[in-house]
């Protein structure tokens, strides 16, 4: 038996919850330069159990590998708008938006969340990209704007239908938030920045906390019987079911936002007005239509098609799987693939090639499993 490693990097510094994970039975793997929990042992452990628990109750994920950045100073919003295709200056205090860092060619350097905290703009970027993102921002932001890296912060994600009840019991103000809103909170003297967001498709929160208080918060959350810890494995299968692309797999600096089916991240007004890096090539793709587009594939049978598998219409190769796996919720394999535009209509019958076998696949709308974000009652 042999298993391909998930990542090849060598672990650097331990993250604030490193010891906590090990005490809680985590299996740690190198990821984004850190050691991160892939799954936990015990009765509630294992990717499928952790996945299902997130859909039914609430799970605590450590996403402290992600980069937490602050952009402040005069005209910080305008400065960010020169680099991001989304409306930033129009973002009201306490509101957040999904956006993209693009290069001059319109390729995606990273995807990120931007929040107007009132004091500044908070950015949460992918762990594996954060050093490049920081270099890119330093190079292109004007001198009047200050970039801060909150490297000592931890970031915990509490995700699932019971997340609001659990966090609300500790920090009442959290339950007043709706999807994509954020606020500051004081929890027993510990400053928290709480966002009602996440990457599982469920209702939930991401909580920024000073690293030295991360264990206390993780313990307080998991002391609640409705919460179990969950690792990167479940996070990946959850986001795949939710149709959410993963940077480095479903988008890279070689993919543009239109082909990646992330056109919603290009704020309408700014598609024409431009003024952001990569606008010209992206506007051309918007006008002419992309050659390929990211689609969802639902596969027959039980054999998953993984990243790299070819997608065929008859004998013709029409695309490539960029992430795929087995959906615990649906009980069948699902995938995301970039497919030639003429084969992207929902319901199109295609095939994936896995180990010289052809698996029947159908282009399927995403999310595969409906989102259950809390938008207010």
């Amino acid at each position, binding site marked *: *038996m*042999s*298993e*391909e490693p*998930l990542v090849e990097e060598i672990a650097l510094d331990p993250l604030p919850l490193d010891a906590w994970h090990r005490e809680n039975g985590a299996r740690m793997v190198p990821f984004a330069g850190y050691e991160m929990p*892939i*799954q936990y042992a015990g009765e509630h452990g*294992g*990717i*499928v*159990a952790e*996945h299902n628990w997130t859909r039914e109750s609430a799970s605590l994920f450590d996403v402290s590998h992600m980069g937490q950045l602050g952009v402040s100073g005069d005209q910080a919003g305008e400065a960010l708008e020169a680099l991001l295709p989304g409306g930033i200056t129009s973002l009201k205090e306490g509101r957040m938006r999904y956006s993209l860092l693009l290069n001059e060619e319109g390729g995606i350097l990273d995807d990120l969340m931007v929040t107007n905290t009132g004091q500044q703009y908070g950015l949460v970027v992918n762990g594996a990209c954060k050093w490049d993102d920081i270099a890119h921002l330093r190079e292109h932001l004007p001198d009047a704007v200050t970039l801060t890296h909150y490297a000592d912060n931890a970031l915990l994600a509490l995700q699932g239908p019971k997340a609001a009840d659990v966090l609300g019991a500790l920090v009442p103000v959290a339950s007043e938030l709706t999807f994509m809103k954020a606020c500051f909170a004081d929890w027993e003297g510990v400053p928290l920045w709480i966002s009602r967001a996440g990457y599982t498709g469920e209702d939930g929160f991401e909580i920024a906390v000073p690293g030295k208080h991360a264990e206390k918060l993780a313990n307080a959350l998991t002391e609640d019987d409705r919460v179990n810890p969950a690792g990167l*494995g479940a996070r*990946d*299968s959850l986001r795949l079911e939710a149709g959410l692309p993963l940077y480095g797999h479903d988008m890279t600096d070689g993919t543009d936002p239109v082909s990646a089916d992330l056109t919603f991240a290009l704020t309408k007004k700014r598609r024409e007005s431009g003024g952001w890096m990569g606008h010209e090539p992206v506007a051309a793709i918007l006008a002419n239509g992309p050659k390929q587009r990211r689609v969802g594939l639902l596969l027959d049978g*039980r*054999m*998953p098609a*993984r990243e790299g598998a070819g997608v065929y219409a008859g004998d013709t190769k029409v695309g490539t799987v960029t992430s795929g*796996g*087995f959906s*615990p919720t649906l009980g069948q*394999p699902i995938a995301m693939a970039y497919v030639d535009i003429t084969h992207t209509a929902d319901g199109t019958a295609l095939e994936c090639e896995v*180990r010289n076998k052809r698996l029947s696949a159908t282009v399927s709308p995403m999310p595969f499993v409906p989102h259950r974000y809390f938008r207010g009652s």
Partner: protein
Amino acid sequence: MPRYFTDEHEWIDVEGETATVGITDYAQEQLGDIVFVELPDVGAILDKGGDAAVVESVKAASDVYSPITGEVTEANSALEDEPALVNSSADEEGWFFRMTLSDRDELEGLMDDKAYKAFVDNL
């Protein structure tokens, strides 16, 4: 019936001229939830150390190698409907396939129960 182990975490039970092959409990634990097992066809000729089967867990596909050279005589059809048998009973019900034993000498390089336990303890 003697059971042998490979350093790739396959086990092999030998009974006369026939051998049954599976993966160890340690292996299934490492793989996590198994969602699909691709088994060799009956009649396929396997080489010692060559590809024999593929185990798909939620997160990844992993190769299983043949511990010996021989011809596949039976594949465990129970795994088609219930691949999780490999998780719940790696040592017994979750066996993968049966094959002929063509060269007894090939067993000599394999570990016995005690040696395998020591091998795993050192990982």
